[in-house]
């Protein structure tokens, strides 16, 4: 008998009475303006959210950023901007992204309650770019900002094999005497562009 068999026998033996699965349909907190709340939440977690009016050029806006001007290596998997001098498509070994300074990607959902952005690696050949980059820029369309995690998970309905992530703010730690330090291992900064 394998351990699997042993464990399953133990789990089927003297089964405790089955407890019902609860109904999760309840009314959850929503906000008068989820886009404003989203911006506040992003700031609250140490990120920087900027709402771009339609017609404003994202590429142009990025080039004027201090973070961009200091970069040497920038890559983009965003459909809204092709600004880059490193192409993830041309890289076979993700280790080559060690010196990536700035990475730009598109999020598909923004969550007002916690400033989180959901994205998958569908359009990102090397997901490590999200974490190895010194600075991260994510975009999210304003119509894709939901109030809370319940609404977000309702949308993440069809699961495809691969990788999906909620990113809320830059990498951080408080492991040294509870002092908050931004940029522990991942991105030192997160800028979110809310697109109309």
């Amino acid at each position, binding site marked *: 008998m394998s351990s699997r068999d042993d*464990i399953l026998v133990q789990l089927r033996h003297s*089964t*405790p009475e089955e407890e019902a699965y609860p109904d*999760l349909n309840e009314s959850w907190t929503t906000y008068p303006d989820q886009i404003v709340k989203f911006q506040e939440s992003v700031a609250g977690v140490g990120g920087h959210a900027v709402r771009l009016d339609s017609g404003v050029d994202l590429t142009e806006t990025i080039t004027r950023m201090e973070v961009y001007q200091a970069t040497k290596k920038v890559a983009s998997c965003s459909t809204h901007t092709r600004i880059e001098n490193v192409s993830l498509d041309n890289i076979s070994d993700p280790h080559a992204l060690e010196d990536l300074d700035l990475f730009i990607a598109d999020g598909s959902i923004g969550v007002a309650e916690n400033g989180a952005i959901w994205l998958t690696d569908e359009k990102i050949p090397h997901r490590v770019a999200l*974490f190895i980059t010194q600075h991260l820029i994510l975009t999210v369309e304003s119509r894709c900002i939901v109030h809370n995690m319940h609404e977000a998970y309702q949308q993440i309905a069809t699961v495809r094999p691969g990788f999906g992530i*909620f990113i809320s703010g830059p*990498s951080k*730690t408080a492991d*040294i005497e509870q002092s908050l330090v931004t940029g522990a291992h991942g991105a030192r900064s997160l800028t979110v562009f809310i697109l109309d």
Partner: protein
Amino acid sequence: MTTKSHDHAAKAKQFISNPEKAHWHDEALWFIREKRDKQVHSLPEWERLRELASQIKAHTISKLGSYLVAFEEQATALGAQVHWAKDGEEHNRIVHGILKNHGVQRVVKSKSMLTEECHLNPYLEKQGIEVVDTDLGERIVQLRHEPPSHIVLPAIHIKKEEVGELFHEHLGTDQGATDPDYLTEAARHHLREKFMEADAGITGVNFAIAETGGIVICTNEGNADLGVSLPKLHIACMGLEKLIPRMEDLSIFIRLLARSATGQPITTYTSHFHGPIADGELHIVLLDNGRSALRLNRAFSEALNCIRCGACMNTCPVYRRSGGHSYSATVPGPIGSVLNPVQDAGTYHSLPFACSLCGSCTDVCPVKIPLHHQLLALRNHIRLKGHLAWGKKMTMTLAAGVLGSPFLFRFFGALARRVLKTFPGLMNNRFNTWGKQRDLPTPPVTSFASWYKKNRRGDGA
């Protein structure tokens, strides 16, 4: 018989012998409790979330076998490989086997209390494999050759001066440097090298989804993701109880987890893995190690709800003033004081008594484990297993004898009062533990019962 090394009271006393440090530790953790309060009070539906989470867990645990089989099926269909380990020893052999097959020499590991429970690091190191813990707090305690003192904040007991000294020795930072930004930056560079060199990444699992075969890992630092996105081999270690039925359930648990743990609305990274990375391998190791047995122990099975948030530790007035190491266990604090003695009453019998039964842990637990009631019940359980000190048992039997008889009660009560009044200094001796820092009550002349007899009986009341 309590061995000195597992006696919480003795270790707590030692911790408090440095009252400045004990107060500092207490304030540090209370600060996190306050952050938690601020976050949860901003959600009017908080108690509803807790209730639903506990119901989802109760349901899942009642059908754990079928959900695990479903999870295995789905995960395997996605290309992951699922392994089953009945105890820590087997877990370590499985993990080592996978690493050996791939010729792995250097591993990076993100925070996993389960791997601590199995003592994986020393096992792998003995086999010649380098294991680097990449969570900053974990790396700090790893360099100090000590276990973490908290399941979420491993280095909460360490001052920045001590980190400065440690990093000066191991990372070459400036002597005397204590600035957290500077020290973290040094750790960032040091660990980046380790991520770049690693042959494999080992992680824990926060939640495993039965319906999709996916696993979810939450971090603030991004170390788990870095660790498994560079090397092609990812080994994820999880306890059987980490399972939840559906993706939708995450909406409840993700809202509860970080708020309870650190007072954040969500961790920076909440990564959902479905199958291995392209051209890579994902191995999921399921560990039992007493969990299936605990499930059948109805008095304590709710402890399986635990999502390892650490909120009970942050709020526990005893943990805050004694530190995680006083519990001599991988998982300390209130939840550890249930899990450890249930599995091994002989070694951990002091833990349920390391508790004033205040109930704060129960009220903060996001999955509503009735911790303080379980701790009380465990005391009886420990007595039944024969691990209660004979002296304690005898005292209680004698006390019950006296208190069971009104005559004896009044007799001994009056005697005690008279003796204390006549010889007030009698109690000023080293056997009087109560009197070390507290005065005794001034013994009154009469008891209530005598007063009542004199002043009210037959009074037509």
